[in-house]
């Protein structure tokens, strides 16, 4: 087991494509780190640089206190689970798991003992003599994990290991990976584009965009204190709502009405003109189901609900609004960066399951004004971020830097943001 330190890692491909740009991330011994971002953000490239399948253009990769930039993958003693598992189809499950041990020249008795132990952990005992071709997706996934844990590796690396499984299995395997990692206490780096996996699995999460580190913090910090528009929009499901806003004193003017925000937040956003307010769907509520002492005129607004999706425990209400053109452009760009495509600007409100608001109703919505974030539309920076609880935010403007890199990337490979990982 070892800590992994990435110091100013740069990856530039032969054609000049800047895939990873000056990324510094420390993974502590035993920590579960998630690398997350939309497709083409360089997260897989970064992982492959840790394991040694990709050359490092610049910067230092230090594993367990040793610089490994020039070591071959086999000399780094890391184990990796590939997106498509990469099992050896000509070998049985047993031999697949035993493969790293056999390469290391371990005696048969030790191989057998370790393979049996791994197969027991992963409940593969009855499949040991089968070939990978005869296994289901979840079983293959477990074999790939068996091959990773059988060896006393310095760290585990996962490259989108669950993306080929169906939704139910994905949830189960997610819990399984988390349990396994906690039990073995081994340093883990996990690449995913799924923000649920990122939130649930990681001790800390590093959000990347266009090969530029945006924020490196615990899931809670990312959720509560995103450093910029990109992180705010990427973390959380359904995503954060972005509304045009103007701050006057401690009053924030939103398309639906005016709400009062705490003094300290308001102070940070004074005199900046038109801003973007970010409010998570769960920070809204149907005023009728909120405790009456919380409901004040300053914190409620009336709006016509367009569509309601009732899920039992909660309901999502959609409220369309018009955004001024200068904000709309920024919002559309953001949407594209997040792999999405919005047809209209709308507010998503998460309501309690008990709420009786129906489609077409004019509803009274309460908003938790303390949780509102205000972003600078020009730079995307979060003006109201609580820096003490935001983990590591790289200096300079990460979002603007990513934008810059994006232009360079497009110059080399047009449409590169659509590239698959």
């Amino acid at each position, binding site marked *: 087991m070892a800590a992994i330190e990435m110091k100013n890692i740069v990856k530039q491909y032969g054609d000049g494509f800047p895939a990873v740009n000056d990324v510094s991330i420390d993974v502590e011994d035993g920590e579960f780190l998630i690398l997350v971002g939309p497709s083409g953000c360089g997260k897989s490239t970064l992982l492959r640089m840790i394991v040694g399948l990709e050359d490092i253009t610049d910067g230092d990769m230090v594993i367990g206190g040793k610089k490994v930039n020039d070591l071959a993958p086999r000399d780094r003693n890391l184990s990796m689970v590939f997106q498509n598992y990469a099992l050896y*189809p000509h070998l049985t499950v047993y031999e697949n798991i035993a493969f790293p041990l056999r390469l290391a020249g371990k005696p048969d008795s030790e191989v057998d003992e370790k393979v049996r132990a791994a197969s027991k952990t992963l409940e593969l005992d009855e499949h040991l003599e089968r070939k990978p071709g005869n296994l289901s997706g979840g079983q293959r996934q477990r074999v790939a994990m068996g091959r990773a844990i059988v060896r006393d590796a310095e760290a585990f690396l996962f490259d989108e290991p669950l993306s080929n499984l169906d939704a139910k299995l994905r949830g189960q395997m997610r819990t399984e990976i988390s349990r396994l990692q906690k039990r073995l206490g081994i340093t883990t780096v996990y690449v995913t584009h799924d923000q649920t996996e990122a939130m649930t699995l990681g001790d800390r999460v590093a959000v990347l965009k266009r090969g530029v580190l945006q924020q490196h913090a615990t899931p809670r910090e990312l959720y509560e204190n995103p450093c910029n528009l990109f992180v705010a929009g990427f973390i959380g499901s359904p995503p954060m709502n972005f509304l045009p806003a103007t701050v006057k004193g401690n009053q924030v003017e939103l398309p639906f009405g005016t709400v009062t925000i705490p003094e300290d937040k308001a102070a940070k956003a004074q005199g900046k003109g038109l801003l973007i307010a970010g409010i998570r769907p769960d920070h809204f509520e149907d005023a009728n189901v909120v405790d009456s002492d919380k409901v004040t005129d300053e914190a409620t607004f009336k709006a016509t609900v367009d569509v309601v999706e009732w899920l039992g425990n909660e309901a999502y209400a959609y409220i369309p609004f018009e955004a001024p053109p200068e904000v709309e452009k920024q919002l559309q760009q953001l949407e594209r960066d997040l792999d999405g495509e919005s047809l209209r600007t709308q507010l998503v409100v998460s309501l309690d399951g008990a709420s009786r608001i129906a489609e077409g109703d004019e509803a009274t919505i309460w908003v938790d004004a303390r949780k509102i974030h205000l972003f600078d539309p020009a730079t995307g920076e979060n003006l109201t971020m609580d820096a003490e609880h935001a983990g590591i935010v790289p200096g300079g403007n990460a979002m603007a830097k990513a934008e810059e890199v994006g232009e360079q990337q497009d110059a080399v490979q047009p449409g590169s943001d659509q590239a698959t990982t």
Partner: protein
Amino acid sequence: MKTKTTIGTWIGFILIMLWCLFPVAWILSLSFKSEGETATGSPQFLPKDPTLDNYSAILDNGDFTRALVNSFGIAIIATALSVIFATLAAYAIARLEFKGKRLVLSLALAIAMFPVVSLVGPLFDMWSTFGLFNTWPGLIIPYMSFTLPLAIWTLSAFFREIPWEMEQAAQVDGATSWQAFRKVIVPLAAPGVFTAAILTFFFAWNEFVLAISLTSTTASRTVPAQMSFFVGPDPFNPPYAQLATASVIVTLPVIVIVLLFQRKIVAGLTSGAVKG
């Protein structure tokens, strides 16, 4: 309607089988006939009096058995070398990006397009000078050069099918590049390797023009060439029965090899390597 097409398929199938296999059956039947029976004016299909005399006679013929040994030796060595070189070359072509890759591939194809006959003259002169005339290497080298292109093309197609990740996984698991190649890539390309091996072996086993031109004695003459010397005492009455027997014997290994390797040439061996 369905039965109609089934019947049609079978009729067509049987017609084609008759067309292809009748000469083979005729040779087989000839090989069991006595010398006298083959010389009669209107022979019947089945031997009147089946005999194994032809087989014992031909296996006692020192020239023939010597040629058989030559054939086996030359074909096996040419196949082994050709497959080894082709595997390494095809791997490089499939995996590495280097300048002149297309050139190598098209040159390889160009070599295969040369008619063998056009090279007999120059080869004869060269081999006489180098002292390779009438030796095993004298045949092995041209056989290799004629079969390598096809083997390289076949194998590089197989290698391209194998996901890169297999190899990367092996490297992460602690394998050197060579170990990854030998323990993961080659077993996965096995169907391709066997296909290439069989094609090469057949070429070397059946080849006649070079075998007759570049040899002068049974020191290196192969069976197809040796058979052309089975003329018997009477030029107007060749020993048909013995020729047929030699043909049967020379065909047997080919059939055995196909049957043996048929199991190995299982397509879809790589299924299950990646998500299914």
